[in-house]
């Protein structure tokens, strides 16, 4: 499986270019024609990404996250899962680097074979940084009114977390 993912990209590139050649496409010229757009798309994304990431950075720096973690830990205890994994649930939809930091910290204190770290890792692997993806994908095509996309993404994230916690507990016990 691991080998597959390293092989797939070079094979795909080989496939595209060789089929292009066989069908007498001027491959170099067409590649450049398509690639031209890369710059303008990246530039279009900038305002959306700045808006999203600066707000998230302020939120992280303010210490509000720790407060919510403390406020939510009785709920976690009541539901029967470790409160240590709450920060992962709170920060995962917001930032990728932040959630990597949370996981690295948990690994340092509990070790990779503890149930807490396994749960947090499954949570990490099961969801995406929804706000970042939303800013990039909608930013690239200048969509400002996102309708229900964010709600749907966050509800899916939440169900992913609940599933991750339940499944990890069931799987490792």
């Amino acid at each position: 499986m691991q080998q597959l993912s390293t092989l797939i990209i070079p094979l795909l590139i080989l496939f595209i270019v060789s089929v292009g050649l066989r069908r007498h496409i001027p491959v170099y010229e067409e590649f450049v024609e398509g690639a031209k757009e890369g710059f303008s798309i990246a530039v279009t994304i900038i305002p959306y990404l700045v808006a999203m990431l600066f707000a998230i950075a302020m939120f992280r720096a303010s210490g509000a996250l720790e407060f919510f973690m403390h406020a939510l830990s009785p709920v976690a205890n009541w539901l029967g899962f470790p409160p240590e994994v709450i920060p992962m649930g709170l920060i995962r939809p917001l930032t990728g680097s932040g959630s990597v930091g949370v996981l690295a910290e948990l690994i340092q204190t509990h070790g990779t074979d503890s149930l807490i770290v396994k749960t947090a890792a499954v949570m990490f692997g099961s969801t995406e940084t929804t706000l970042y993806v939303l800013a990039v994908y909608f930013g690239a095509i200048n969509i400002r009114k996102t309708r229900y996309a964010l709600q749907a993404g966050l509800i899916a994230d939440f169900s992913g977390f609940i599933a991750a916690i339940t499944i990890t507990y069931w799987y490792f016990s």
Partner: protein
Amino acid sequence: MLNKIWAALIITSILFALIRDIMDEINNPYQNGIPQNIPYTVLKHDTQQLVLGFLTHQPDDKDLIDINAIIETDSRIKLYIDSNSPQWLQLLASVHGNGSNFTATLIEQNAEHMHILFPELHWVKLRAITEAAFDMAEFAAKLALGLIGLMALWLGLMRIAEQSGIIQSMVKIVQPLLRWLFPGIPKDHPAFASISMNMAANVLGLGNAATPLGIKAMQQLQQLNNKSDTASDEMCMFLALNTSSVQLLPPVTLIALMGTQISDLIIPIILATTCSTITAIIVVRLYQKGRLRCNN
């Protein structure tokens, strides 16, 4: 919803920072205006170079951290700070100096201890969130510009694939599966191919390929959209599928962090992501049918 969440992030962070700073003003954790007794040893008598011993401010750690310092004229002492120094000294250096040093007032000294009055620290959290906002604005632009190369590579390859008919044959294969999820995309539209390639990249944990292919798919969906500033139903479905995607192979960062333990986690991750993907499809469908409402 996005507007409200965005505003809430900014307002809560400023309120929290303000409350924390006001509590700091009351509790005075940085000992503003209170001279500190610091043990020292002299390194060189002629240049007045010495080493100050500071508490690390970590619980159950009685060791002292050495800070280099020089006595300047008129009871002024200059402290040299690096990234291993205690947090509050680093803060002082960034607020009252150039980041690597700052000057404090030397009140009196005996053979072992120095009585030092440090500059005052106020509004630490508000300063921190402002700095975080500026830093991140800069980083966001860098991040977006960093996409240029990858975007260009994939858009170039996709262009060859379009011209040589690969996309068209791919559409034929995947559209029976995808038409159910994206009923608004007309038959034989190339968007089916980009969507399926993006999904494949996501499932295999290939983040570098997934983002450019996803943007390509979004562009094609935008051509079918009749309100150019508003997301279409197809776009919302595509985004929700993206953020909840089934992961056959975990993302590279997770593999790097977990090491050999990762092989145990693959099955739980596949099961959990299957749950979130199903939820995403159901939730988007409920919004599309008007069972759930959003106000824009």
